[in-house]
């Protein structure tokens, strides 16, 4: 990272170290708290004073997620309600299908649009901005027309519907991010390939595409991360047939109490792929999040 060599090496002072350590602790603590809660037995979830370190490693919460289990609504046995957990395999599958579908759609659209914008100046200067505005408005705005539209088209509560919505809402990211990669490849390469007899389309795909392979992969992972963690659309557009992890998380909040343990366990399962994807595209994150404006 950074430029090596001529930079005067600045050393980190004592104060700097302290504030870094505090920052790291603050950054990690909530994540630690989820992990910790996911390993606690029910009686420790809401104990007063809070249990900072679980007494023993207890994986029943994780087990309950996959096999189903009923919890007493109160760990002290005062009430007779029970809270039932339904297995979450469907939610994980649903999330995987929706995230993959949405990502593929978004990348295909993004790739083609990015070539169009970058190489053929389609739509002039305004079009890219128009694409971008889809990302800038709060998703709630678009939600209402989508709901009305979907109920007419019978797309509500189907995988197809959610995949379309995801593809729509992440394509601005993929268009702008892939475009920033394409812009870095000199257009002369394609021109010389065309002189050698390739059509414009095959020049794009045979010359430029291999050069930006890494960038496209990074964009894919980036978009996948966005789709995987999406909540609003999944929550409103699914009722029975489709369920994704974030929506499943909601269901642990029942009328008689909240199943903190399984909820946290599912949370941990859900963020593991995000962490893996996120760290593997660390280099491109700044570019993705700023629509390609900041390059490293």
């Amino acid at each position: 990272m950074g430029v090596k060599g001529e930079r005067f090496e600045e050393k980190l002072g004592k104060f700097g170290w302290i504030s870094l350590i505090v920052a790291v602790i603050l950054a990690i603590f909530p994540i630690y708290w989820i992990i910790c809660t996911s390993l606690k037995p029910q009686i420790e979830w809401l104990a007063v004073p809070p249990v900072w370190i679980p007494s023993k490693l207890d994986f029943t919460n994780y087990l309950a997620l996959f096999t189903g289990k009923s919890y007493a609504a109160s760990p002290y046995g005062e009430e007779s309600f029970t809270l039932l957990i339904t297995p979450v395999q469907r939610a994980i599958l649903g999330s995987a299908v929706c995230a993959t579908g949405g990502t593929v759609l978004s990348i295909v659209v993004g790739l083609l649009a990015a070539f169009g914008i970058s190489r053929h100046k389609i739509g002039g200067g305004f079009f890219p901005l128009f694409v971008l505005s889809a990302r800038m408005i709060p998703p709630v705005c678009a939600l209402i027309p989508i709901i009305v539209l979907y109920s007419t088209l019978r797309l509500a509560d189907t995988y197809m519907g959610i995949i379309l919505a995801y593809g729509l809402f992440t394509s601005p990211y993929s268009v702008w991010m892939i475009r920033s990669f394409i812009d870095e490849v000199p257009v002369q390469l394609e021109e010389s390939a065309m002189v050698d007899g390739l059509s414009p389309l095959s020049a794009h795909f045979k010359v430029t595409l291999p050069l930006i392979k890494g960038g496209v992969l990074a964009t894919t992972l980036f978009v996948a991360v966005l789709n995987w963690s999406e909540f609003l659309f999944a929550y409103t557009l699914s009722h029975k047939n489709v369920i994704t992890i974030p929506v499943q998380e909601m269901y642990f909040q029942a009328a008689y109490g909240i199943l903190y343990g399984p909820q946290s366990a599912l949370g941990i399962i859900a963020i593991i792929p995000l962490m893996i994807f996120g760290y593997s595209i660390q280099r491109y994150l700044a570019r993705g999040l700023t629509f390609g404006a900041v390059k490293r």
Partner: protein
Amino acid sequence: MLVACAVAGEFLIGLYLANLLSKTFRGKRLVFSLLLSPMFVMPIVVGYAFWMIFQPAGPLDHFFTVITGINLMATPWLSRANLAWIALILTDIWHWTPFMFLVLYAGLMSIPENPINAAKVLGASGWQIFKDIKLPMMKNVIIIAIVIRSMEVMKFFDELFIMTGGGPGFDTETISMFTFTQAISNSRIAYGSTAAIIILLISLILVVKAVRPVLVEER
């Protein structure tokens, strides 16, 4: 209000951290990765994590009670309007400071060496270098980061939905939450759409006025 506080907090912390990390020390890569980790947690899970943390008699209360010696165990973080705002702002700051930090760090790293070295030779102090050389040279990056973050905070929804649901009462209602409540929960599609149109107009103005100059002229 949410926008201003959250973005300001994120910016200052992010800038400070980016500056610290531009120095060399052992274990830098590890610290860098750890600092980025909040960004990878999905918003819903962030909502729940902080919901647990802000519970009365939860870890946060216990921590303060132990530190200060005063019994703060029953602080109603999420059911008193002002405290709920603070809780939401802190949550957003936690979740998105890594973004600021990452972008600003990228900006800091792309500053050429020569002016800094020249200033050092001339005897400028660390603060002077930071104020007079690094900040002006990072201006573009800073504007981009702040504009994008402001847009994103406008859309702040998932954590809010989980943590307070716009409550207590309607005290922490943002415009997204309002639209959602009206259109989906109360099934008043037309009313919700009107709110949506208003948000749309505000956002479009912001896009054209703020985002366009930044993003388009950058290339």
